[in-house]
C-alpha cells in the first residue's frame, strides 16, 4: 500500500503491483486494498455508529424500519449531493443548486395547479434547471467569475425571483395529489422511489467519472487546469457542461422533493445546501483518495443520515445532530490530511497537504518547485 519511490523500472514490474487503476491484481489483494481504513474509513465509522445506537436504543434503532427510514429520509440529500459531485470534480462550486431545487419544485407545482398536465410541467421544470445551469456556466466560464461567488450570486437571484413570484407562500392544491405525488411518494416494500432515483444517478455518475475519458478529464481539470489545457483537455467546455449537469440534476431533485412534500414550498431547497456539501466533501475522503466520487458521496450521506436518525431516535437534544455533522466532517478531513501528508512526506511539493478542503488552491507549496531553479 505504500507509495514510496524506490523500486525498479516499470518494465521490471508490470502492472501487478499496487492498486493500479490500470492493473488487474488478484481478487483477495484487491479486496484487502479496497477495505483498507484509509480508503473506506467512513464505512468503519458507520459500523461503529450502528453498534453504538443499537446498544443505546436497542428497541427502535436496529430494526428494518429504521433502515428504510434512513434511506427514505436521506434520498433527497443524496440526489442533491450527487448533483454537485460532477462540478466539484472539476473544482467548480455550484452553490445555487439548493435554490434551483426550490425553483424547479415551485415551477412544476405552479404549472400543475394552473392546470398543466404532468409531463409538460415536468419538462418545463427540468428545462428551468438546465437554464439556470446555462446561466451559471455563462457567469463562471464565459465571464470568468469565480464559481463560488458567481453561483452564490445566481442563487441569491433565484431566491429573489421565487419569493417575488410566490409571494413567499407555498403552492398547493388538489392537482398535486395525483400523478405528481406518486413521483416521490410511491414505495416498493417500504423503500420510496427517490431512493431508487438516487441509486440510479449514483451509478451513472460513478460510470461517468470512473469509466469514461470525460470523467478522467474532469478530474484533470480540477487538479491542474493549466496542465490539462496544455495536454489538450477542453477545460472550459468541461466546466461549462458540469454546471449544466448540476443545474439539471438539482432541478430533478427539487421536483422529487416537491412531490414528496406534496407542494411547492418557496424555501424547500435551502436546508439541503450545507448537508449536500458536507456529504460530497466527506465522500471525497473515501474510496478515491481525494477525488470527489459517487460512491464516497453515498457512503457519506448514509453515515451522516444514520447518525442523525440515531440521535433523533435516542431523543438526544436537537443541537446534537448539527454537532454530529460538524465533528464527523472535521475528523474525516483531518485524518485524510494527516494520512496524505504521511504518504507523500518529504516531497516538499505540499500539493497534497491541502486535502480536498483546499478546493480552489491545491496547497501552499505548489508554486515552489521542488528542485527547480532557473
Amino acid at each position, binding site marked *: 500500500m505504500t507509495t514510496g519511490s*524506490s523500486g525498479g523500472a*516499470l518494465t521490471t514490474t508490470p502492472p501487478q*503491483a499496487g492498486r493500479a487503476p*490500470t492493473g488487474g491484481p488478484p481478487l483477495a489483494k484487491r479486496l484487502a486494498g479496497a477495505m483498507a481504513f484509509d480508503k473506506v474509513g467512513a464505512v468503519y465509522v458507520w459500523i461503529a455508529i450502528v453498534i453504538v445506537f443499537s446498544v443505546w436504543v436497542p428497541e427502535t434503532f436496529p430494526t428494518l424500519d429504521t433502515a428504510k427510514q434512513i434511506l427514505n429520509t436521506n434520498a433527497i440529500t443524496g440526489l442533491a449531493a450527487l448533483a454537485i459531485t460532477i462540478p466539484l470534480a472539476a473544482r467548480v462550486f455550484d452553490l445555487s443548486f439548493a435554490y434551483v431545487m426550490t425553483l424547479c419544485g415551485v415551477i412544476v407545482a405552479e404549472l400543475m395547479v394552473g392546470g398543466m398536465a404532468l409531463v409538460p410541467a415536468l419538462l418545463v421544470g427540468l428545462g428551468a434547471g438546465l437554464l439556470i445551469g446555462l446561466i451559471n456556466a455563462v457567469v463562471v466560464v464565459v465571464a470568468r467569475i469565480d464559481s463560488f461567488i458567481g453561483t452564490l450570486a445566481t442563487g441569491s437571484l433565484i431566491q429573489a425571483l421565487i419569493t417575488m413570484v410566490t409571494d413567499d407562500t407555498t403552492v398547493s392544491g388538489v392537482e398535486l395529489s395525483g400523478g405528481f405525488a406518486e413521483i416521490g411518494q410511491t414505495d416498493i416494500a417500504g423503500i420510496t422511489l427517490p431512493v431508487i432515483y438516487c441509486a440510479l444517478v449514483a451509478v451513472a455518475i460513478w460510470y461517468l467519472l470512473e469509466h469514461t475519458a470525460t470523467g478522467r478529464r474532469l478530474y484533470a481539470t480540477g487538479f491542474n487546469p493549466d496542465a490539462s489545457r496544455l495536454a489538450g483537455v477542453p477545460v472550459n467546455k468541461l466546466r461549462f457542461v458540469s454546471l449544466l449537469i448540476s443545474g439539471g440534476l438539482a432541478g430533478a431533485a427539487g421536483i422529487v422533493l416537491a412531490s414528496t412534500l406534496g407542494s411547492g414550498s418557496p424555501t424547500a431547497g435551502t436546508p439541503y445546501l450545507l448537508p449536500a456539501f458536507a456529504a460530497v466533501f466527506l465522500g471525497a475522503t473515501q474510496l478515491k483518495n481525494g477525488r470527489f466520487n459517487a460512491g464516497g458521496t453515498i457512503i457519506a450521506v448514509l453515515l451522516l443520515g444514520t447518525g442523525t436518525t440515531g440521535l433523533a431516535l435516542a431523543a438526544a437534544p436537537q443541537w446534537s445532530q448539527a454537532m454530529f455533522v460538524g465533528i464527523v466532517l472535521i475528523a474525516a478531513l483531518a485524518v485524510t490530511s494527516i494520512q496524505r501528508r504521511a504518504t507523500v512526506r518529504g516531497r516538499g511539493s505540499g500539493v497534497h497537504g491541502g486535502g480536498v478542503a483546499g478546493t480552489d488552491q491545491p496547497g501552499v507549496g505548489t508554486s515552489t518547485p521542488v528542485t527547480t531553479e532557473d
Partner: protein
Amino acid sequence: MGDFVTNEPRAARPLGAAARNGGDAATAGEYALRVFSLSKTFGATRALQNVSIDVRAGEIHALMGQNGSGKSTVIKCLAGYHQPDGGDSAELDGESFNIGHAVPDGLRFVHQDLGLVLELSAQDNLALHGGFAKGFGGRVLWREQEKETHRMLERFEVHIDIHQPLAAATPVERTVVAIAAALQGWHGGGGLLVLDEPTAVLPHDEVERLFAVVEEVRNAGTAILYVSHRMDEIFELADRVTILRGGKLVATKDIAEIDPRALAGLMVGEDVDPDYRAPVAGKPEAPVVLETRNVAGRWLRGVDLQIHKGEILGIAGLAGAGVLELPYVLTGHAPRGDKVTGELRLPQESSEWRDITEADKLNIPLVPADRQREGVIFEFAVSENLSLSILDRLGRRGKLGKREEAKAVEEWSDRLEIKAESPGALISTLSGGNQQKVLVARCLVSEPDILVLCEPTAGVDIGTRVSIYDLIARLAREGLTVIVSSSDEGDLLAMCTRVVVLRNGRVAQELDGDGLSQQALVSAIEGEN
C-alpha cells in the same frame, strides 16, 4: 561598517574595486555566514549532499550552478522553507543557528519573485515587511510611515511615487524596493543579504543600476550571497564564488584566480562533458515540416522559421527576447488575453497558411517550462498522467479502455525508461527527471511528427539530463522533428542541430549546431558580435 580581513587586491573591476573602503570595527568575525555540511533529500532526489559554504564578512559571494545544482535548495533551507535532513548547523557573524529551524535577524532575503504585492504601493509593500508606524490604538501614523519610506528608498537613489501601485514601477525599481524591504531595520554592520537571481527579470541595460545598489549594500558592511548563473555578472560583481553541481559542493574560488572557461568547466563538471553532443545529424536537405511567417505576440516581434524533418532546432535568447513565449505560441497555447498574430503551415500536409492561433488543433504537443504548475497532475498516478493526451483513443463508445491504457503506458514507460514503483504510483513519488520523462511520454504517446520542448531539463539531475538528451536525439533520428527552447545553454549545445538566437523578439542569428562552442552561443545570446 564590517571588517574586511580577507581583502584581495582586485584590479580593474569597475564596481568591486570601489567597494573596498571598510576595515574598521573588527567586532564581527571573519565570516558573515558559515554553513556546515548541509544535506537535503526530496523523495528519491538528493538535492543537497554535505554542502558547506563560507561567506566572508563584507564580501559579495556568488553562488553558481546549473539548473538543478541545488542553489535554490540552499537558499530555501537558509530561509527556513525546507528543513535539512542533516547538517543544519550554521553560523551568522559568529553566532550559531540551526538551518531550517531559525532564521537569524541578520539574514535577509530577496527571492527571485521579489515577494512584492504589485497591486500595493511601495510604501505599503515596505510596511508589509517591516511593519507600520503605529500610534495609540493601532492607528497607522501615515506621515511617519511616509517619512520612513522615503528614507529607506533614498539610500538607493530610487525616486518613485511611493503611493502608486508597484505595478507601475520599472522592473529594476521593483527589485530595489524588494531589497529595501528586505533590509528594513538592518542598517549595515554585518549580516548577510541573499539575492536569488536578481537580474533574471531585468532588461540588460538596467542590470548596472542594480549592481550599484548591491555595492551600496556591501559598502554599508553587509555581506551578499548572490545567486546567479550568469557568468558576466559574477565576474563584474563578485569577490568569490562557490560552485554547486548536482547538489554537491564543487569548489569555492576567488574570482581573481579563475576565468570564465574554468568556471564553466566547474559548473558543468566531468559527468557531462561540456562538449557532450548527443548523436544527431543536421539534415538541411530534409523536407520542411513546419514553417512560420511573421509570428508576433507579447515579446515576439515577427519570427519566421523553417524547420526540417528530423531536425532538433534550438531557440536561445535572453529573458524578454521571446524564448519562453515562442514554444507556447507555436503550439497554440499563448496565455489568454495575449494578442498573437502570425501564420504557420505544415508543408507536408498542405501548402495553405493557417492562423497561428489555430495551432492547438494540429498535433504539436508541448512539454511546458514549469513542470510543477503546467505539467504534472500531482493527484494523478503515473499512468493517468501519461495517458491524458490520448484518452479519446482508448476504448470504444465512450468507455475508457483500461487495458489499452495500461498497454500504452507500459510501452512508453519502457521506451523512455521511466523509473516508477508501478504505473499506479502517484507521480509525486517520482524524481524530477522521471516526472519530466512522463511528460515527454504524454506528448509522444499521441504520435506527433513535431514535438516542442520548453526548458526540458529544468530541475532534472545531471545523470537524467544526459539520458533526456540521448532520448531526444534518438527520436530525431527516427524522424521526429524537435523544437527546444531553453535558457540553459547546455541543453542547446548538447542536442541541437541548429540554434536560432532571438533578440528583441526577432531572429537575430542562426548558428549551426555542429561544432558550436559555448562561448559562441553565449556571445550570440548576449548580442556581442
